[in-house]
């Protein structure tokens, strides 16, 4: 290394100053803070605007209308949870299947095209899903509901008059499942693709079939990512407004998933009724929004607890 020119040497030494790091750290930190601040504002907005409904005593006029806020809101909360649960139950296995298909099963030449095709689902606006759900899907579901009722009617979920328009909570759940599919798929497939080849090869070299290899290396590696994608999809399902609004024929709480005029969700309740709402009624609707916020919070607390426990179990190894 006798040919070293002094010039390059000094150039290499000219490390950038620490300011860059500080600024970048500051920006990143600010990004985090903005999220918390926005969320705090949203929470404050919801809380302040819904006080007249939740604590009517503090607000003289209109108090009597609001006394039964809880009996108003609990069926909505139940409906929201039910429809999201249906959506996730349907979408999760399919999304994982599709992601695996793209990452490990599809002919390699096509896999990115297939990913693109599935992404197409995400490109479709929720209004269109709403229109599709009510015009195309709902009528198709009618005979299925009839069948479910005839054969499985003893289960409370399929009891009650089967809808003859198909505009039920189950149809809404199916539409939501289709809507959250691309979100879950996109995230899962990226994670699946990132599974270290070294580990996959190790499993194959031990004589594992493709499926056993996936079970042993891909799933453990992707577990956190899968849970993330489920949470993201859950958020989407809980908060989806327009599609449910257009598809569902809402009503009070019912165990039956196949009757019309049963169950409703909070976002669609707000979207349906906010335009005509005034004063106390508006507070009531925003309070329902607050309750949805609370549901999301609780669901996330539970999900975190599960994840943490699993992580602990994994760490318990070390």
């Amino acid at each position: 290394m006798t040919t070293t020119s002094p010039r390059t040497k000094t150039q290499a030494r000219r490390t950038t100053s620490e300011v860059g790091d500080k600024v970048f750290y500051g920006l990143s930190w600010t990004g985090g803070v903005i999220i918390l601040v926005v969320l705090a504002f949203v929470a404050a907005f919801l809380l302040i605007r819904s006080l007249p409904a939740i604590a009517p005593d503090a607000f003289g006029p209109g108090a009597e209308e609001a006394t039964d806020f809880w009996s108003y809101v609990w069926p909505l909360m139940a409906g929201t949870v039910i429809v999201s649960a249906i959506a996730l139950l349907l979408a999760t296995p399919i999304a994982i299947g599709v992601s695996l298909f793209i990452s490990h099963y599809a002919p390699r030449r096509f896999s990115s095209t297939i990913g693109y095709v599935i992404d197409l689902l995400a490109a479709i606006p929720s209004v269109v899903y709403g229109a599709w759900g009510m015009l195309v899907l709902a009528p198709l579901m009618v005979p299925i509901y009839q069948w479910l009722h005839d054969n499985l009617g003893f289960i409370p979920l399929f009891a009650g008059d089967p809808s003859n328009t198909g505009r039920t909570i189950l149809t809404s759940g199916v539409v939501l499942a289709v809507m959250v599919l691309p979100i879950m798929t996109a995230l899962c497939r990226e994670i699946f693709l990132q599974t270290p080849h070294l580990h996959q090869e190790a499993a194959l070299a031990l004589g594992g079939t493709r499926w056993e290899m996936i079970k042993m290396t891909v799933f453990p590696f992707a577990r956190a990512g899968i849970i993330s994608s489920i949470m993201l999809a859950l958020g989407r399902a809980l908060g989806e407004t327009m599609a449910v609004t257009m598809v569902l024929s809402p009503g009070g709480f019912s165990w039956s998933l196949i009757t019309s005029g049963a169950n409703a969700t909070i976002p669609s309740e707000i979207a349906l009724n906010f335009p005509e709402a005034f004063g106390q009624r508006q507070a009531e609707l925003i309070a329902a929004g607050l309750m949805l916020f609370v549901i999301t919070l609780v669901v996330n607390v539970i999900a975190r607890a599960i994840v943490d426990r699993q992580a602990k179990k994994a760490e318990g190894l070390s």
Partner: protein
Amino acid sequence: AEGDNANNAGGDEAAAEVSGTLVGGGASSQEAAMTAWTSDITETYPDLTVNYDPVGSGSGREGFIAGQYSFAGSDSAMDSDEQEQACGSGSPFHVPSYISPVAVAFNLEGVDTLNMNPETIAKVFAGEITTWDDEEIAEQNEDVDLPSTDITVVHRSDDSGTTENFTDYLNGAAGDAWTWEASDAWPEDLTGESAQQTSGVVSLTTDTDGAITYADASQIGGLSTVAVGVGEDYVEYSAEAAASAVESAEEDPDSEGARVLDRSTEEEGVYPIVMISYHIFCDEYEDEGLVEQVKAFGNYVISEEGQAAAEESAGSAPISDTIRDEATERIEAISVAG
């Protein structure tokens, strides 16, 4: 008519002076008419832009009270609380500028029209009559061959002025057969099929054999309609029949300019299921320009021209001269707040 002349007397000069953007918002029922009005008004007032936000009556009234809208479109009149909050030192008034009959529409193979009296309509919508060949319906329609199809009641899933008017009608005309108060939400204990907006209920009804619903008559498309029992007669909806219902309605003592319809009227040729959608203005505005804009818009909407435009585009019923005169007077009296 005098107001009209006064307006026209100002002629092109006045028209040229009115300029700027007037912002209003409210009932979506008026959307089609409003599209026509906001578009056509530029022929008379080329520099005036009217924006209308079809956010719904409630949000419209709220925006009006908060000052975001200079006028509101609303399917129902303001209550006294709201009136107190609105317009600062002034007070609001109503102009019944959009009148629309609400049709009771159904989809039943082979049946084009049916007679039903208010009690029967109430029982159908309350779920007490469940098949089309029910005796009570058959009695009133002797020459119609009724199938035994189940009745599917379709109602609005969103809170709506249409529902409020329809339930108000049932409440007023059907006696004991309908026990619910008028409300913009369908009674909770009556579950059934529902859909969002007029177009939603109409398309659901069109797709479902045996379905019946209530909807803005201009939008029912190919559905059959019920001739509603008024006294001894059965009246089909029509623009004139609807207009005469408004004509004969009494002035609302609590809300200036608003009308209280007599749902149980037995007057001949009156179609009682009518929805009146109002424009709500203040009697004084902060600045001169705004007053001019509001006057120009208010007068145009109730003019024969304006009503004709709405009828042509939206299928509404034109208001009568009496109502027009009354409204013109109020609009002309709008002044700059001082």
